[in-house]
């Protein structure tokens, strides 16, 4: 009996460690964003509001934008913000470090899966010219609106308030 309880204890401990480790690994590595990924992101938030932010390590204004978001999105639950980096696999460690630095690790982050950027940009938005940062606000019906460049304070404040109120209306 004692032996059995120890086995159960060990098994539980192991499961917890494995689960914890898996979830840590998944969150610490950006997900590869391919031509179907936006649909997956939207489907997972069907009928729910969220904000989508495209950025790259090579874009100094993007860092400003991410730092601002890190300071202002404390009221948003984890599913309300999605980040997509247009960088490459070689940049994953740097992307992770930046997410930690700006305090955005709890949100889903993705990174362009390959160098065929025309196709991936087109999958995000056929009307987007590739400028960064690029931000979309999705209301619950997903009739999204877009913004290019660093969000000005008024727009960001208004969008965040709308996200919070739309989320409350859902609950």
């Amino acid at each position: 009996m004692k032996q059995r309880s120890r086995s159960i204890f060990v098994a539980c401990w192991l499961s917890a460690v494995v689960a914890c480790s898996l979830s840590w690994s998944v969150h610490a590595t950006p997900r590869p964003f391919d031509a179907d990924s936006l649909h997956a992101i939207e489907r997972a938030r069907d009928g729910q509001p969220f904000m989508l932010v495209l950025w790259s390590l090579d874009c100094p204004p993007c860092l400003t934008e991410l730092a601002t978001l890190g300071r202002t999105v404390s009221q948003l639950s984890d599913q309300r913000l999605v980040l997509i980096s247009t960088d490459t696999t070689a940049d994953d460690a740097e992307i992770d470090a930046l997410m930690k630095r700006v305090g955005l690790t709890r949100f889903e982050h993705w990174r362009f899966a390959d160098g065929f950027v025309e196709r991936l940009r087109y999958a995000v938005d056929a009307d987007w010219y590739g400028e960064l940062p690029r931000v979309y606000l999705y209301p619950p019906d997903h009739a999204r609106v877009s913004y290019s460049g660093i969000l000005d304070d008024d727009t960001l404040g208004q969008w965040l308030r709308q996200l919070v109120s739309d989320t409350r209306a859902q609950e």
Partner: protein
Amino acid sequence: MRNLRIPFLFSAIALVLVNSLMAAAAGQHGGGHSSPAASLLPACQGAALPAPDCGRTPAAAFDGQGRLWLVFSQNGHLYLTYSADRGASFAAPTVVNRVPEKISDDGENRPKLLLGDAGQVFLSWTVKTPGKYAGAVRFARSLDGGRHFDDPVTVNDDHAPISHRFDAMARDRRGRLYILWLDKRDLAAAKRNGSDYAGAAVYYAVSDDDGASFTANRKLVDHSCECCRIAVDIDDDDRLVALWRHVYPVNLRDHAIARVRADSTTLSGEPVRATDDGWIVDGCPHHGPDLSLSKADGQAGKAHITWFTRGTKHRGLMYGRFDLDQGQLELQQSIDEAPAASRPQVLATNGRVWRAWKAFDGSSTRLMAADSTDEGETWSAARVIAQTAAASDHPDLIAWHDEVFLSWHTQAEGYRLLPITEATP
């Protein structure tokens, strides 16, 4: 206590195992520190030997004998090679930088190649250095037709761990070599003083001894956009002409153009606004202009320019003809308004102007070209020169006398030198 040791041991092993599995999975997905594979060709997989097909961001130029020279980036090295048969086959590449570096080898930020007429090979490029957006501008030369390269030198003389990137290079008829780049030393100084500074600055250095030494760094202009390439050419009076995306107050990202005096020391007059599209954005276009001065008789001081904008007045890829003496854009046309169109290039040869760009239809990228025999007033119908269904590099227009080519690297097909002169109706 003893009872706890076993679970701890197990958990430690499990943690290591799971994490190594995850790391392996990430590795299979192309993780690691090198740039992602430049090519899908079987010959380029794994530890491929340096080759134009397998490298990244090739820069091409013809020498006086019509041989095609190519420099490309692969695994932290730049390699130089040449082809005597217009790109059908290449000589064994020679390595430029023996010590590997983090070479910037993406579309907008890529190595540059110039050839002298006595076997000189000049290369400039940007390396990533530790720190946020930090980079240094590098230069290397060969005086024996690329057989040996001197050790690379860093051209930015402040050696600060800040951004010096997006290098450009030009050589005038007297052999004076210019290297320009986007530099953030003034932004860093402003930050130290607690003040603001919009964008970056364009700095340059000059060598009049074939790259053996360079002048102290000089500032060309304040407040350039910080992530778009600079376009350069040399005019009939041996003056450097530069075109760059500027940051006009406040965050108006139109282009400016300027000439440097023939003695290379200062600007010849103030920079002039070259484009007026009304694009206000506090962001990165990552999409710089191109420039080629007219070669036609009686057209000295006319600059053919191409650029990208998303302004309130115009959108997409644009072509224009700028009169440097009058300081006016005298012609402006749309090349392609589609959001996915990119990298407009322009090249003036004697009696003809060429423009080329990438178009995208939702599944494949088409390399397009058109030409004009009346200095850009009217253009041939756009022609599809090549296409690809995977990732592709930026194309370059290059000429051997009146023969014009597109130099293009694509992931699925490798490197191609595509003649476009023949295709003219």
